[in-house]
Structures are given as C-alpha cells and as structure tokens.
C-alpha cells in the first residue's frame, strides 16, 4: 500500500513547523536555562523531522536520514557542553535564571 496519498507531506511539515515555533517560544519565554535547552531540542527535532520526511517524499534516498543522525549526535554533544556551562552558571550565580545574566551588556 502506498501511504503517500493518505498522509500528505504537509502533515509532517505542519508538525515540524509547530515544533519549531514552540521551540522558539520556549527559548525566548523561559527564564530557566535548562528549559531553554529543551527549546533547542525541539527545534532540532523539527528540523530532523523535515529531513526524514523530505528524504522519504521528495528525495528518495537516505541522505536526509544521515543528516538527521548527525544532528542527533551533535545535539547530544551540544547538550553535554551546555550542561557543563549551565552547571558552571549555577555554581557562580546560585541560579540558572537567564534574565539574571546581564553582567555583559551595552
């Protein structure tokens, strides 16, 4: 069976757009640095979803899959580093409130 007609590509794109927008919202609205990192993950997921969907629908090979795999890997790496930094912030500030970080400005 071909599911191509059943689930149009646009469905996936909608989901990914929603994830992307929610990720942006999370990043901008959340005060907590860790929550902001979650927003990043949402965005990465939305992009990955796009890659895989396009791979399936319009491209017809696995390059999108591979891209997604690398993104996932790098997301992990980034998360690790970010965690390190957030912990450092916590050590120095006793808090991870992004709004409080305005020692550098102007």
């Amino acid at each position: 069976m071909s599911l191509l007609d059943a689930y149009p590509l646009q469905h996936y794109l909608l989901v990914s757009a929603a994830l992307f927008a929610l990720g942006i919202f999370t990043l901008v609205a959340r005060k907590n640095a860790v929550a902001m990192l979650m927003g990043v993950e949402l965005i990465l997921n939305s992009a990955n979803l796009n890659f895989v969907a396009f791979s399936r629908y319009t491209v017809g090979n696995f390059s999108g899959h591979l891209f997604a795999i690398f993104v996932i890997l790098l997301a992990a790496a980034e998360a690790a580093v970010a965690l390190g930094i957030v912990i450092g912030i916590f050590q120095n500030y006793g808090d991870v409130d992004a709004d409080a970080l305005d020692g550098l400005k102007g």
Partner: protein
Amino acid sequence: MTTLTSALYHAAFYADMVLTVGSACVVAFSKNIVRSAFSLLLTFVGVAGLYGFLEADFLVATQLLIYVGGILVLLLFAVMLTHRISNIKASNETSFSALAALAATGIFLVLVEVGTKTHWDVKGGPLGESTRPIGLLLMGDYLLPFEVAAMILLAALIGAAYLARNAIRK
C-alpha cells in the same frame, strides 16, 4: 490491508501527531520544569513515532536511544543539579512571553505558508529497510562526516568534562 487496520493506522498517525505537538506545547508552556522535561520525553517519542510512519526504522532507534536515553537524561541531570530539591517545582517561570509569542507566531505562520504553498515534487516511493544502507553509507561516502562527528564528540567530551570537573567537585 483492511479498513480497520487502515483506520487504526490513521488513528495512530493522527494521535502521534497530536501527542507530539501537544507534549511540545506542555514543554513550552508548563510552569513546572520537571513536567516540561517529562513532556519532552513524550515529544521525542512522538517524533520517533513519526519516523516510524516515515519508515525510517534506524532513526526510530537512534531517536529513542540517543534522545530519550542520552539527551533527556542529561537534561534531567541538569534540572536536578541546578535546582535545590526544595524548590524543584516553582522554577520554570516565563518572561517576555508576549515577545516570545510574537516571534513564535510569526515564524510559525511563515513556515506554514512555506510548507503549504509550495508545490512539492513528491516522487519517491518507500525507501525500504534503512539500517544497512545507512551503515554502508557511513563507511563510504559519509565516512568523513562520521569521523568529524567523532571529533566533535571528543571535543564536547573534553570540554564538558573540563567545565563540569571543578563544578561537580565543589
């Protein structure tokens, strides 16, 4: 395929979509950071499900292993390490919500417009089983990216270790 299975299949697909977006909403809007973190788990799972619907079996596994097993755990660690147990619940306030909503809505509308208005050249059929070809590609054309990813992970490892070393010792 029978109508029922088809209906179930459809139901599952839309449920997955709703789950994904809904849990992402919880991530975005929840006042509780822990709830956000666990909703994120659901989102990841939902995305993995969507991968499944896209017949990307290897990715489903990767998503679950790395995201759910790795990244989410890291995030939870972060939550734990950066919150005193006492006030773990009340620590996910928002600010600039209006600005954020504006930005998010704007970009969402643009992306929806892009996704729907474009006439996508849909041509490919099912790709079939993906693990083996991916493996081959990783050892062939994608060898360099693979190695580079390794270097990135190495750097991230060393960097994260450096950053966290003292902090955790303290």
